[in-house]
């Protein structure tokens, strides 16, 4: 029997739709973990990026965090975080905590960088006009800068979400669940059907996530005639502030 047929068997066998190790449970674990880590990362990264962008200072910090994030191998972060949680955090399920921390660390840089750039690049004249209308600093941040930066912020969330869904797979290596369980168990047991079924499930979830954020990005970019980025470029008049 071919590998794909075995994988199809695995995915259609009723036995794999029940209990702790079933496909729905693993899928839900994967989605929950991704949403939780993305949510926590957003709570941390969004205010920092907004504030740094609003003040137009400390840009070096935000950009350094963003670039460092690109060089860090996710597998390496997990391998460092896991022994540290073993040592210092004695709460809940260890694999869960280590995976969650890794995913949060991974998601922060793209969200922070994009929020910072999006906020910073809002046209000076627009902000001056808002100030002239009597808006306070906080009001400018919430009513002018945040909405104008929204398309870039969503682009950052999209990058973060794709990376999180992909990396949550590695959680199975530190005895957490999620869809990576099928891949790691399949490899360990030489069960190619389970292995390929896991791979197909993870890949599908990643592609669906990417597609959903692409749609969201399109939806919140006002008067879209082209890509959101092109729209932003039209929105920002570069000479406004020298860079």
């Amino acid at each position, binding site marked *: 029997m071919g*590998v794909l047929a075995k994988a199809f068997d695995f995915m259609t066998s009723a036995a794999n739709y029940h209990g702790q190790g079933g496909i729905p449970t693993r899928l839900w674990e994967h989605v929950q973990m991704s949403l939780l880590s993305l949510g926590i990362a957003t709570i941390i990264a969004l205010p920092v990026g907004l504030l740094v962008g609003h003040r137009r200072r400390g840009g070096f910090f935000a950009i350094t965090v963003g670039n460092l994030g*690109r*060089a*860090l*191998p*996710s*597998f*390496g*972060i*997990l*391998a*460092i975080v*896991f*022994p*540290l949680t*073993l*040592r210092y955090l004695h709460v809940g399920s*260890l694999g869960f905590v280590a995976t969650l921390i890794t995913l949060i660390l991974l998601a922060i840089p793209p969200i922070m960088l994009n929020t910072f750039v999006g906020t910073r690049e809002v046209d000076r004249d627009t902000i001056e006009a808002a100030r002239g209308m009597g808006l306070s600093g906080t009001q400018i941040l919430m009513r002018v800068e945040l909405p104008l930066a929204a398309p870039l912020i969503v682009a950052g969330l999209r990058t973060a979400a*794709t990376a999180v*869904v*992909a*990396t949550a*797979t*590695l959680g199975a*290596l*530190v005895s957490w669940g999620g869809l*990576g369980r099928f*891949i790691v168990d*399949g*490899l360990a047991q030489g069960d*190619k059907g389970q*292995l*390929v079924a*896991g*791979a*197909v499930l*993870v*890949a599908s979830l*990643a*592609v669906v996530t*990417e597609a959903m954020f692409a749609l969201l990005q399109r939806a919140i970019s006002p008067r879209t005639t082209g890509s959101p980025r092109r729209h932003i470029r039209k929105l920002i008049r570069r000479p406004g502030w020298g860079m």
Partner: protein
Amino acid sequence: MTVAQGSFQQPLILWSWIGDNRAEILHRVIEHVELTAIAVFLGLLISFPLAIYAYRHRRAYGPIAVITGILYTIPSLALFAFLVAYTGLTVTTAEIGLVSYTLLILIRNIVAGLDAVPAEARESATGMGYSRRQLLWRIEIPLALPVIIAGIRIATVTTIGLVTVTAIIGKGGLGHFILEGLLQAFPTAAILGAVLSIVLAVVVDALLLFSERALTPWARARSRA
């Protein structure tokens, strides 16, 4: 949790272990560089003709971008797992996966670089009687080189990170230490593997930046003027 118990007593970094394993560390660094170099080289070999085709036939660019984009989105562990079912725990499996992640980055940058070539340069070359092939190799590619090399830099740094994941299919270079540290809850190995792979990425990136400067002296002369 017997393995984990042991990790509570040992220091975070056991320097003597690093000293005892120097030969193994060097061997893994070389393996890491080899896996990366092969992947980027093969990636370029595939990307170049595809990008030039996409550059000349705009309608082909959409489908090429979508296919390489989907390949890029597939999580690395899933792709390696899928390939293992066909090509086994081999270098081939590792390389197919690694190469597939370089394609989107390389093709996008090659096309963007060629697009940015000034129309005047192209027209004067045509006026001087250059054939389409001469125009490509003597004018367009040299002028696009900075953007192409920028793409090679991103692809290389990304690949260095991804090579660590191939430890799961028995390869991995420095990822071997990361996996060992993870499975045995031995922080020294995990930290060593992660830190060295980051250092490797930074060093290789700097070398490529340097080679870009050397290959495109006119760019520097222009910016100095």
